[in-house]
């Protein structure tokens, strides 16, 4: 049924009113017109803004087989993400792509970016070199701190990039 007010959108709210003589009238409104009339279409006003709720959602992230994985660049895990709500680096998005796609859909109702497209500046060789330099730096520190497992992982990562 179309909205009685704008006659454009589907109605979602039925407003029932009765006057002093007991005559009942019904009006069907779409969400937008209802909001404009100040009609509360929400069940109840949450005590906390939605942001807090969404902020806590990452804790509800369902366990998945990818959970055991570790980001090759920052060595972050999904467990870290679940406890802090933050990812470690841009490469985490590729490492945990399937889980994050699902999560993004839940939060944003969508996982597809439709905004501004971006083309990074040209000297990609140099960028690759920056990533490599960063990884080599991490490798050096891992060896210094005798974190050999981490060092082996970084070495493999560097090999792939090279």
């Amino acid at each position, binding site marked *: 049924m179309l909205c009685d007010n704008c006659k454009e959108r589907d109605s979602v709210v039925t407003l029932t009113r009765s006057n002093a003589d007991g005559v009942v009238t019904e009006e069907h409104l779409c969400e937008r017109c209802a909001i404009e009339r100040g009609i509360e279409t*929400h069940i109840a006003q949450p005590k906390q803004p939605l942001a807090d709720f969404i902020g806590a959602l990452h804790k509800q992230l369902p366990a998945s087989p990818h959970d055991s994985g570790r980001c090759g660049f920052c060595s972050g895990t999904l467990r870290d993400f679940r406890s802090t709500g933050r990812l470690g680096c841009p490469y985490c998005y590729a490492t945990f792509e399937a889980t994050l796609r699902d999560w993004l859909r839940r939060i944003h109702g*969508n996982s597809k970016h439709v*905004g501004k497209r*971006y083309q990074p*500046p040209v000297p990609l060789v140099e960028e690759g070199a920056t990533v490599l330099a960063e990884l080599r730096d991490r490798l050096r520190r891992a060896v210094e701190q005798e974190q050999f497992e981490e060092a082996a992982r970084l070495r493999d990562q560097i090999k792939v990039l090279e």
Partner: protein
Amino acid sequence: MTLDLSLLPDGGVSWLDASGDHAGIVLSTRIRLARNLEGFAFPGRARDGERLRVLSRVREAVGTAPSLRHHVLVRVDDLAAEDRLLLHERHLVSRELAGLDPQHPVRSGAAVFLGPGTGVMVNEEDHLRLQALRSGFAVSEAYAALDRIDEELGATVPFAYHQEFGFLTSCPTNTGTGMRASVMIHLPGLNATKEISKTLAGLQQMGLTYRGLYGEGSEVVGNFFQISNQTTLGRSEEEIIDQLMYVLRTVISREEDARRVLLRDAGYIIEDKLWRAYGTLRYARSLTFDEAMSYLSGVRLAVGLKLITGLSVYTLNKLLIFSQSAHLAQAEGRALTDSEANLVRARYVRQLLAEEAGTNG
């Protein structure tokens, strides 16, 4: 290092001048874009050296960006706690960048480039938080300024970007456009007529959310609400802006309606209440910040209803910012205890209102 905000082109407060659209109701418009550099861990995970390298790359890029030519670099990590608080009170840096929470102290490499109406925070939750701040209701204008900065920086340093997910951010709630467009709005009419919860629920249904004066996690004081988009993925920047503007226009007109209703149905009660608020601010000897906010909200409403004339919105905006603790301490040139701050605040408010009354009769 001591912070001298007079070095900034506009003291960082040109947005207070009440020159924008609907400036009586809408204090300011702020938009921010979250961006990260390819090849570096996000600031929360990065090591000190990595964050410093990010800062030095951003610094080079800022040097080549025409829109940022007059921007001043402030190394937040070099500042004393009171100066970091001052920047935050002025809405120039976030709480996180200023490192104000004991559990999240200031990070090495935390910095901000400040210029007239725009700023670039470095090593906040994301490597870059580009922001534009405007007086009044000026969403398109603020975005245009920000988009230029985004283009210029993105052409020099490679941003982390994913074909499907868009701009990648530390917290996936910002992924996609990385954009948060928000409007700081004063809604005493809707509050007094008990319409506010309906309005806020309506906002949430339209994909918008609200916060207090200082953004995330802050409480609503003095009837100031910061209304912004909730999601950043699946809608373009233009769609986000259009929707915010559409909904805000409705909120503004409902606030205006509520004010008319108040005057019509409760004229003398409201008038009395608002003049009492003004009287308290003119003569009180001690004011807490929350008290001051609450009375200023009343006086702002009285000015909007033209019950009080000869008092500018600019002065009210200044009171909002300069009556905060770090600003009072800076003006006094020393640290203040809470009770001292209350005395200094009351004196400052009295002075500013008396000056205005003196010049305007």
